């Protein structure tokens, strides 16, 4: 039975955060009056070593067997305080937190009401704490393999670091080639090219045998728990095998021509195609969405590399962790926004990068609408900073830097082109400020706007009207070509990803990480890690760095070879269970089955599979099924304390 509860209450000021709106002393004194409470303290930073030391001492001094900490949200520091009381010899689940910061001091302005609420929250926590029982985590062996979803720079970097550390890595990429968006990026800082960066990473991947690359593949099912996830990968058919030596004969014969998404629609490609020079695996691929299976390519291929009957195959992997590095989509301006789509000299920044890249459709020559423009303008913040109705409410971080890189590149190649950059704030942060200086030296003209410029198409070309705020004049700039510096938006197919991996998205639509600073590369669900632009706009260097960081976090999870799961699983009181089987059908993880105990069929919970949602215990008609840590009596006690009923 639960031994006689001796509760210690510790209230945190959190600097100003709580103390400003909650009279912590009054709450501490009130806590002393609550039943089972032996001692109550308040300190300016409970989460600091001093605060934790205070808790440890009080546990030893008054041999407390329950601890209530009234501070910030459990999502912030429940792990911290659990390890603190564990180091004082107390089972780490005999802790209950009262959230008097996010739910109280930060959310209410009236100090007196906030203090009253804080008292209630403490009373609720004490009520539940008194009924808590010691729980043991379950340890499970861990499979030393990692699934990396997304073959962009972040995914590749994560895969390389994980493989070098010693894990077995499955790198799954949806497109037919590795490289992601970075491969299509043209020029970068200190004169590097996106394709070279991708090439270096690909070379590292190719000669590392622990990395198994699956292109044209996607994750369809994902289940299990940290250290033992089951992932089902569907590898779509490529229709071309290793015998292909990239001779290109098949491409010539292929009758189907579609817009080439690897050049952002600037050129066209055939149904059978090779994405770009540095693509890996170096094999042609047939785009099954448009291929009419006419067989011309098969006839054309002397090496017998094409097999139109190839089927997709699925793989079942048992992985320890998953790194999601699925990247982003460039913002696609709707037709008419800045006259996009009404004039073919109006292109996006990504298309311009393809034009300036030697692998691009024009082999690096700036030919827009058939000619080298005499005057070219960039409009920044397209799709970001709420400049247009359909744009997002954040800054996409990298468009300023890449716009200036390309503007400088244009001025270097074509010195007499007039280049205008229409901007709100030039965000070339850190050392990229030198780009802003170089742009100045290269005679790039900057035009600052507050109200977004209007672009209209007139017979003699594109005219941009903008109110230049620093000279307080409405000026109109006739240009031959206009580049919309579009930002980064979450991927269109992100909802499928969320459905399969249970990740969730934040206010800006990108996948939400646990905490921007505490751990920027981990998802709230244990075992799922996020690398690169999937959590928000980043440039290529930052994405690569996030890839390594994710690899490091995976290593912290899997390096011990075993992993402990949260103990909040369901458990059956076999005496009371009537074998009515209601719970079996409700469990989303199929963790409950019936087994025979002295000739009675009784429910049994497989703790390894149970993720601790508690649905079964809410439905169990005879109250036999209870969830550890969230038992009926514990929650009932909280309800009573919450309504002021019971102990006043």
């Amino acid at each position, binding site marked *: 039975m639960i031994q006689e509860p001796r509760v210690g209450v510790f209230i945190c000021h959190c*600097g100003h955060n709580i103390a400003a709106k909650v009279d912590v002393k009054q709450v501490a004194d009130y806590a002393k009056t609550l039943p089972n409470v032996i001692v109550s303290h308040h300190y300016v930073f409970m989460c600091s070593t*001093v605060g934790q030391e205070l808790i440890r001492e009080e546990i030893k001094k008054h041999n407390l067997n329950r601890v209530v900490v009234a501070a910030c949200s459990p999502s912030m520091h429940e792990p911290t305080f659990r390890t603190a009381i564990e180091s004082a010899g107390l089972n780490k689940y005999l802790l209950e937190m009262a959230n008097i910061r996010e739910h109280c001091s930060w959310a209410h302005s009236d100090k007196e009401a906030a203090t009253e609420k804080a008292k209630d929250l403490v009373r609720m926590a004490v009520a539940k704490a008194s009924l808590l029982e010691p729980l043991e985590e379950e340890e499970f062996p861990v499979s030393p393999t990692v699934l990396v979803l997304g073959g962009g720079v972040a995914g590749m*970097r994560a895969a390389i*670091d994980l493989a070098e550390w010693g894990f077995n890595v499955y790198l799954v990429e949806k497109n037919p080639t590795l490289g992601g968006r970075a491969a299509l990026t043209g020029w970068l800082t200190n004169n590097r090219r996106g394709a070279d960066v991708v090439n270096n990473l690909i070379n590292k991947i190719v000669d590392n045998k622990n990395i198994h690359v699956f292109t044209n593949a996607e994750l369809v099912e994902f289940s299990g728990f940290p250290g033992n996830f089951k992932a089902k990968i569907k590898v779509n058919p490529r229709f071309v095998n290793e015998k292909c030596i990239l001779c290109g004969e098949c491409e010539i014969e292929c009758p189907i021509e579609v817009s080439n998404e690897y050049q952002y629609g600037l050129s066209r490609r055939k149904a059978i195609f090779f994405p770009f020079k540095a693509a890996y695996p170096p094999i042609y691929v047939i785009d099954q969405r448009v291929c009419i299976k006419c067989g011309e390519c098969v006839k054309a291929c002397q090496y017998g590399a094409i097999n139109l009957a190839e089927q997709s195959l699925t793989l079942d992997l048992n992985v320890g962790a998953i790194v999601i590095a699925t990247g982003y989509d460039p913002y696609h301006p709707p037709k008419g926004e800045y006259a996009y789509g009404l004039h073919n000299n109006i292109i996006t920044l990504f298309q311009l990068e393809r034009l300036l890249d030697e692998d691009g459709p024009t082999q690096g020559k700036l030919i827009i609408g058939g000619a080298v423009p005499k005057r070219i303008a960039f409009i920044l913040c397209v799709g970001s900073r709420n400049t247009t109705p359909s744009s997002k409410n954040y800054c996409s971080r990298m468009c300023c830097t890449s716009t200036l890189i390309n503007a400088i590149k244009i001025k270097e190649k074509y010195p007499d082109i007039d280049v205008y950059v229409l901007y709100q704030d030039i965000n070339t942060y850190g050392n990229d400020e030198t780009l802003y200086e170089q742009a100045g030296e290269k005679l790039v003209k900057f035009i600052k706007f507050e109200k977004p410029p209007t672009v209209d198409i007139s017979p003699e070309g594109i005219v941009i009207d903008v109110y230049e705020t620093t000279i*307080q004049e409405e000026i109109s700039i006739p240009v031959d070509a206009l580049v919309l510096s579009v930002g980064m938006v979450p991927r269109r197919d992100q909802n499928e990803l969320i459905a399969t991996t249970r990740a969730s998205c934040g206010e800006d639509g990108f996948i939400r990480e646990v905490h921007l600073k505490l751990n920027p590369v981990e998802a709230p669900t244990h075992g799922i890690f996020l690398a690169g632009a999937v959590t928000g706009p980043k440039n290529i260097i930052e994405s690569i760095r996030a890839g390594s960081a994710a690899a490091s976090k995976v290593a912290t999870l899997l390096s011990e070879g075993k992993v402990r799961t949260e103990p909040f699983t369901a458990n059956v009181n076999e005496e009371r269970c009537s074998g009515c089987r209601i719970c079996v059908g409700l469990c989303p993880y199929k963790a409950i089955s019936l087994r025979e105990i002295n000739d009675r069929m009784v429910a049994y919970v497989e703790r390894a599979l149970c993720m601790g949602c508690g649905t079964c215990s809410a439905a169990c008609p005879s109250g036999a099924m209870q969830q550890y840590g969230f038992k009926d009596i514990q929650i009932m006690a909280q309800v009573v304390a919450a309504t002021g009923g019971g102990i006043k």
Partner: protein
Amino acid sequence: MSKPVLVIGGGISGIQATIDLAKHGVEVYLVERNPSIGGKMAQLDKTFPTLDCASCILTPKMAEVLRYNNIKLLTYSEVQEVKGNVGDFTVKILRKPRYVDWDKCTGCGTCTERCPVKVPDEYNVKLGQRKAIYIEYPQAVPRKALIDYSHCLRLNPPPDLKEKAKGKPLCGACEKVCPTKAIDYNQQPEIIELNVAAIILATGLELYDASNIPEYGYGKYQNVYTNLEFERIVSSTGPTNGNIIRRSDGKPPKRIAWIQCVGSRDVRFNHYCSAFCCMAATKQAILAKELLPEVDTTIYYMDMRAFGKGFYEFYKRAMTEFGVKYVRGKVVKITERQDNKNLLLFYEDTIHSYMKKDEFDMVVLSVAVRPNRITAAPVKTDKGGFIQIMDPYMDTVTSTTEGIFVIGGAAEARDIPDSVTMASSAAIKASTIAKKCVVEQTIITSGERA
């Protein structure tokens, strides 16, 4: 046992790298110049854009550093010399004398009360005071006292008192009162030699000296502060325990101004942009508004750089919800009015194109940041003193010497989220090297557990 990794610098990035390495099962030495780890972040009150309190993020990580027994903490020590190459670096570390036996010291602080000598304290950027024997700040890790040799009457008595005392040792108040007899006046500096597999440089940033720009009158005019000083003033654990008062008359200001790019984006001082001061100023403006609701806050900027996750909404919220005013124009000169010690800011309001002079009770300079110090490690640094990265597009953290990684502010001015990410990416690379060294040869280690 795998060969250990050395992390130089105990700021947020150094701590994060150390924790990651420890979790990877690698032995780590964390060397920190100051008496306690925590770095600049320990001096911050709140962090943008979530307005979490800085110590709510930092102190649990510092506590975690103490919990792993494969982390050896060497604070108040400096790296003298680094030799060797990847997998086999020999490092000489000078452990400066603390004149307190840290095994006996419990950090109770009774000695600090007795000590007669008052000295401006570095933690509060010389706004507050500390004693000659002191604990750097309440949440310090390790929470131990130490004696500041230069100001201690006993260790280094000023000449006039010295001959008056004619050879008799002076003071010794702390020794009398220390409950665990931890004071040891003749503690000598010791050199520790380590052989490590890899080194992570996390030496971090420091503020550029604003007095190098005389026009702003920092150091001359009383009510001109740097952003770090203002952060201490706003912080509840600061010298004015959280109420914003002017240095000249101790009264709360009615109008506060922030001046951006002081020494940054300026060919005369530092070409680069210091990345986080736009958001730091916005945050401080919001904190000021929270503490003094009717204070008028204005930020003078050239480009409001709100580029990170959640930054732009934070900037918009500051403008709409908290009424922080933003003026585009570079403040060039500050003069002080004699009568009320208020400050006149000379700037051109570029949205209205004429020169203005605004009066403020208090001015905060968002000063540029420079690398903390020239590192002893054999790595190339650029002219600003930042450690250069071999190939930012390959593994983004390796310095020009293989096996030596550089993270956080030591490589480039950057904010906390990027530093923490960079710390983890260095950790995996360092532990990969460390794991490979297991096979090669046994190692000799020393240095005690802090």
